[in-house]
């Protein structure tokens, strides 16, 4: 979910930022799809740090780049999976009366936050997908969530094996494999009852699930990863039919090029990546063509994983994205820094510390931290239910030191979330 789409933030800032901010229901970027484990015969921990969820190991990155098509060679795998996320949220202050979701309280809410079905796995020899349909138990809406459909093949390029692919997806950066860009990075799960969220650039979910992009990529044997493509808006009819739609949404005007170059090295006992990403987008109102804004996003990112024998795993990932928004009303500049570090013991017990800092125009300045402790008892080779079931339980605390330029009262938006995250 975009950090841009907090309704409180929207009211506090200019309309041009509102334009990019309105996305969909409160979806999180969590996923856990045991259909991949069933397809490959590999256990969840082979592809995921901490044995569940989006943070990929080098093995998982390669599986994704390969189009989700690797298998154990046996026929009959069905690319379907399901996931449920239940949360309990306590906030430092109550939700304002007029913003309490229907059927819930002003504080201390327990909810089946997300119920998802996935079409996830190999379709044909070179075609596979990660496609998610989600029911939000808070918004009580079912819609198409993240979707990434790929074609991938291999070739000998520049004297080495290369993976080449094309991805059709609905959220810029969701196709990225390196755990450091907005599509998949810590925190992978957030509460729908959070009182505030930090603002972010358009690249951070500003057009997620509203856009349709096609990008081509190459992962070369020498470590270079390169990707280039374009995004356009899904039609209003499609959005109304299969997604959440708001009259305040805007659409992409013309081309919205996305570019990415990175270096990735897998040493087996550790791995790292670093790179550059950017997207240039022009948005306009569906109903008023005179209103338009240009978003120029460019960022750098990095990811390091100490993997060792997998008994002790340490990760550090982060990105810094600079955005300039140009409109008739003037320019807005925003800089977003997000960094996280995690430690997992025995692929089961984990702790993660994240830091976020938004700077630029004074009314955007926001910073704080996210702390998470979690326990993932399954997802290993010898686990109960493998490869049919996985679960994580955890506690996450989000704290604000400054929110939208104001330090006083920022901590009133702090929240504690307990969660159970299960998949089949």
């Amino acid at each position, binding site marked *: 979910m975009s950090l841009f789409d907090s309704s409180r933030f929207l009211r506090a800032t200019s309309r041009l930022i509102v334009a990019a901010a309105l996305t969909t229901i409160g979806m999180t970027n969590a996923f856990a799809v045991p259909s991949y484990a069933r397809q*490959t*015969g590999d256990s969840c921990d082979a*592809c995921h740090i901490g044995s569940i969820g989006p943070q990929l190991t080098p093995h998982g990155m390669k599986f994704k780049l390969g189009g989700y098509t*690797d298998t*154990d060679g*046996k026929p009959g795998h069905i690319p379907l999976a399901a996931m449920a996320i239940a949360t309990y949220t306590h906030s430092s202050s109550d939700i304002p009366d007029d913003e309490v979701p229907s059927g819930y309280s002003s504080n201390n809410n327990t909810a089946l936050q997300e119920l998802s079905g996935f079409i996830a796995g190999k379709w044909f020899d070179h075609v596979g997908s990660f496609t998610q349909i989600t029911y939000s138990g808070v918004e009580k809406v079912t819609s198409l969530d993240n979707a990434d459909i790929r074609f991938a093949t291999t070739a000998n390029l520049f004297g080495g094996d290369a993976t080449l692919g094309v991805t059709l997806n609905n959220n810029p950066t969701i196709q990225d494999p390196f755990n450091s860009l907005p599509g998949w990075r810590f925190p992978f799960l957030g509460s729908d009852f959070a009182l505030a969220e930090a603002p972010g650039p358009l690249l951070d979910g500003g057009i997620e699930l509203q856009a349709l992009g096609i990008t081509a990529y190459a992962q070369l044997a020498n470590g270079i990863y390169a990707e280039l493509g374009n995004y356009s808006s899904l039609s209003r009819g499609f959005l109304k039919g299969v997604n959440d739609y708001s009259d305040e949404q805007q659409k992409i005007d013309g081309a919205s090029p996305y570019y990415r170059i990175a270096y990735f090295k897998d040493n087996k006992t550790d791995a790292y990546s670093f790179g550059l990403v950017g997207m240039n987008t022009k948005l306009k109102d569906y109903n008023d063509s005179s209103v338009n804004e240009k978003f120029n996003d460019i960022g750098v990112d990095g990811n390091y994983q100490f993997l060792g*024998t997998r008994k002790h795993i340490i990760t550090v990932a982060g990105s810094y994205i600079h955005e300039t928004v140009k409109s008739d009303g003037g320019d807005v500049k925003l800089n977003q820094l997000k960094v996280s570090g995690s430690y997992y013991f025995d692929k089961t017990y984990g702790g993660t510390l994240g830091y976020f800092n938004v700077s630029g125009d004074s009314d955007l300045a926001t910073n704080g931290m996210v702390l998470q402790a979690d326990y993932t008892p399954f997802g290993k*080779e*010898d686990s109960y239910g493998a490869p049919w079931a996985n679960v994580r339980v955890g506690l996450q605390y989000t704290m604000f030191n400054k929110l939208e330029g104001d330090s006083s009262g920022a901590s009133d938006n702090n929240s504690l979330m307990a969660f159970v995250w299960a998949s089949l």
Partner: protein
Amino acid sequence: MAVACWLLSGSAAAMADGDAAKGKDVFDSECSDCHSMKQGKNKKGPSLFGIVDRASASISDYSYSDAMRGANVTWTAEKIDAYITKPKEVVVGTKMKYDGLGNAASRADLLAYLATQK
């Protein structure tokens, strides 16, 4: 031929010096994503339980590549050593997505560990 024999005898000597405990760590780092050491447990790659001196492509319920089915080798320590050094050169067309383990000492440790798993 003489060079090959020297290389083989060198690798055999290195294997004799391998440390099985260290080899378990090498297995966990290099192999365990795709291979299990449990008998009958195939992942993306076949179980490596009892791999030393096993005939190639001999696990009946594992789907081998055509290249591996046609290899017709016995996985002696020397053959395994050569294969995991440069898999794609030793079995051209193998579906194993592994670039190889260049460190001879690590290979010797791994082979010492594999030899214990039977």
